[in-house]
């Protein structure tokens, strides 16, 4: 696609949008740190970065959902102030969010004219429907204006969102991970739609964390990492593994001391595990992997390639269709979460606030959410509050949880302290296996170090650790072996000592590693 613009090298492309030095911070994190962005007419810009790299917040600044702490936005060379999505729409900037903003029980026409600025009391539906039809035909969107949103597939709904923006006169379209919900065919169609739009002088910004899409869709790519702009490249000058490297980037390592690698017997053994999501899409594809005592097995990969699903299968949260999960030799395939907990599996979940804590309960209660089942905290069904408090005080000091007190509701703590609360609870209750998904994501430097040290300590003490992380540095610095996942498969396993970051980048981009690495056969 985008052959039109790529070929037209002789005419200088026209700069239509410029963001200069955008800085936006939230309590505890800087989401955007002096980020610049340029968008040319008729081109597609890809914004690439991990979860939490600041792509979405940058776009939210652009459409006026967030107000930046510093920085300016220029449209066609003129400085603009955007305070709400209404402002940005008036300026011709529109966004297709990941979660569509459509009303299921209304028709396409109704959804398109909904929220229009000068909507009449009795809108002319016929005229609107006609215009929708003509736009739909023009861009081959295949949208029937009279259908109800609830009757449409996800791909069709997305096209309605795009149509809505064109209808309202958008010149710049922002697409937030548009392909995450699409089938490959629908992705190709989307690609055609975008190239048709760009050939007519519209521009698009494309948020993604998938390298192939960058190559397929975009003219330019900007890579964000931890809120900072780390690379600007013409897409034709780059390739997937290059992008993967930029995305995970190198940074100063913490020096975390760990004991030499002396793995013990198998704790977790997964044999040919297969799982599908409710739509029948394969999320785990023939996974075989082993984690031993005194070992941290890191799982690397771009988000959404089956890592979280793997942790769910091990913690009883996801049922598999075939294959086995063995813990200490016992077959625990498709057991319930409580059975996995009883067999000594601890879990630091990927979404700590949604899955790891109960925000409206106290720090003490949250710390007790594993131990409340055991004596002496419970006896004959009655909880002993004094023991819960004593346990909480012990954990708060052992894990340096910074809280006004054990009775404070846990949702009032910072992200780092919430994570330390989870860590304290899980480690205290841990048997032989600790499963940690993105344990340091979004944490500040101090908390990150504390979390990593604690995980290494568990390994040194003889536990097996399955660690999923997007942060390649984290994986290399603390894990013993690294398995790379792509498309639900384990594409290769390497020893982290002296490993080749380039090779891991290639594997993360889905390029198979033919050389069998040491350890991959265990």
């Amino acid at each position, binding site marked *: 696609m985008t052959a039109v613009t790529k070929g037209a090298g002789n005419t200088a492309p026209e700069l239509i949008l410029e963001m200069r030095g955008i800085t936006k911070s939230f309590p505890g994190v800087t989401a955007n740190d002096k980020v610049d962005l340029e968008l040319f007419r008729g081109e597609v810009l890809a914004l690439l970065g991990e979860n939490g790299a600041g792509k979405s917040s940058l776009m939210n600044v652009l459409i006026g959902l967030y107000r930046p702490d510093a920085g300016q936005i220029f449209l066609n060379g003129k400085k603009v102030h955007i305070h709400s999505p209404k402002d940005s729409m008036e300026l011709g900037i529109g966004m297709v969010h990941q979660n569509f903003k459509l009303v299921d029980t209304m028709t396409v026409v109704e959804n398109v004219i909904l929220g229009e600025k000068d909507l009449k009391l009795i809108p002319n539906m016929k005229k609107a429907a006609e215009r929708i039809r003509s736009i739909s035909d023009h861009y081959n969107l295949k949208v029937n204006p009279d259908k109800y949103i609830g009757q449409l597939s996800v791909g069709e709904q997305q096209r309605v969102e795009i149509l809505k923006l064109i209808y309202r006169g958008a010149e710049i379209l922002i697409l937030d991970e548009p392909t995450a919900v699409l089938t490959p065919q629908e992705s190709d169609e989307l690609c055609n739609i975008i190239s048709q739009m760009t050939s007519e002088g519209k521009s698009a910004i494309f948020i993604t964390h998938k390298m192939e899409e960058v190559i397929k869709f975009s003219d330019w790519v900007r890579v964000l990492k931890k809120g900072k702009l780390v690379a600007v490249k013409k897409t034709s000058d780059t390739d997937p593994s290059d992008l993967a490297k930029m995305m995970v980037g190198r940074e100063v390592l913490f020096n975390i001391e760990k004991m030499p690698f002396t793995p013990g017997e198998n704790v977790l053994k997964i044999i040919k595990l297969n799982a599908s999501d409710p739509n029948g899409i394969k999320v785990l594809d023939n996974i075989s992997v082993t984690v031993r005592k005194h070992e941290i097995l890191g799982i690397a990969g771009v988000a959404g390639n089956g890592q979280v699903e793997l942790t769910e299968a091990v913690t009883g949260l996801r049922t598999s269709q075939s294959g086995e999960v063995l813990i200490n030799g016992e077959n625990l395939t498709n057991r319930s979460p409580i059975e996995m907990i009883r067999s000594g599996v601890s879990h630091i979940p990927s979404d700590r606030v*949604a899955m790891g804590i*109960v925000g409206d309960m106290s720090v003490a209660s949250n710390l007790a*959410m594993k131990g409340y089942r055991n004596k002496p905290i419970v006896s004959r069904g*009655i909880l002993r509050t004094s023991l819960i408090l004593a346990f909480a005080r012990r954990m708060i000091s052992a894990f340096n949880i910074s809280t006004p007190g054990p009775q404070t*509701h846990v949702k009032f703590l910072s992200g780092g302290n919430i994570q330390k609360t989870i860590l304290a609870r899980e480690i205290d209750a841990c048997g032989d296996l600790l499963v940690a998904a993105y344990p340091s994501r979004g944490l500040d430097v101090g908390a990150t170090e504390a979390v990593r040290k604690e995980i290494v300590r568990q390994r040194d003490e003889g536990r097996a650790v399955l660690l999923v992380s997007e942060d390649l540095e984290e994986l290399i610095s603390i894990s013993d072996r690294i398995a790379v996942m792509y498309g639900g498969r384990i594409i290769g396993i390497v020893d982290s000592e002296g490993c080749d970051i380039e090779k891991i980048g290639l594997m993360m981009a889905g390029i198979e590693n033919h050389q069998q690495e040491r350890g991959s056969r265990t």
Partner: protein
Amino acid sequence: MRIHFKKRKSYSAAAAVLTPVISFIISLLLTGIMLAAFDINPFKTYTNMFQGAFGTWRDFTETLVKAIPLILTSLGVATAFKLKFWNIGAEGQLVLGGIAASGVALFWSSWLPPFLLLPVSILVGAAAGGLWAGVPAILKVKLNVDETLTTLMLNYVAILAYDGIYCGPWRDPNGYGFPGTAQFPAAAWLPRLSGRAHMGLIFALIIAALLWFAFYRTKWGFELQMIGQNKKAARVLGVNIGRNVILALLVSGAISGIAGACEVTGIARRLQQGLSLGYGYTAIIIAWMSRLNPAVCVPVSILMAGLLVGGDSVQIMMGVPSAMGKVMQGMILFPMLAGSIFTEYRLVVSRRNTDISEAEVAK
């Protein structure tokens, strides 16, 4: 100048206490405006209402008569709401409890020893109420059927069945055609404490105490709280959500069932018109006002019962429609819901910052 809400750093206990009190005062003011619009003196009305509900011991016992089913059903509702299971079917559960208890009292007296007749009536009433709430719970857990609809619709099923039963098959053959069953045998009469206030009060207080203990001091209550506040986390932490929902709803319905059983054995001593008076709906308001705390449900129920009894008495004394008491009940809920935001947020008044005024200029 700009007024906006700012999240508090921790819960405000003061706001938690003041919100219901201020809400009550605001509702008095709002209802007062309405009374004044009808040319009725609000102060006199309120004084008479209070007198009517709490003025004499006898009045107070009448208030208690209405408070008993309110306490019980609000406890039932609170148990379900603790799980964010929106059981609005307390009315139907009460009615079904009443029907079942009546059935035992009427037809099992022939073979049950007399001293067992009353306890068995009440237990069977509880079981029937539990069943009536258990069905929506099972549907929700197994098929994800919306509980608001099922519990509400089962109210109509229960109420119409009740109408059909006391007018039809169970009608007293010696009752000169009046709708209603025969009077229960004396062994099935719930003893009265004072006036018409019956033993149900003792049950209500005991159940409130037990439930308070269960909510805040037991493993079960801990799991209910986890599920209610964050279902996803509860699942990750190994809590069996389905079993807990069904169990809690059986308890919830059973408590409302006891309310119905106490009504028929304690007040009318027969199944007749007047069992479904809307206690189960008022219970929803009470449960919310009490923040699902069983200990708070008791005084709030007595207050709400006072409004009902007081409303009746101003109708007699001043010709004010008795619905005024119900209007006030409704009026309390609005400021209450609006006010609950203050426990987590506080109001901040700030000057416009320069950025905004600059934007205004740019526009």
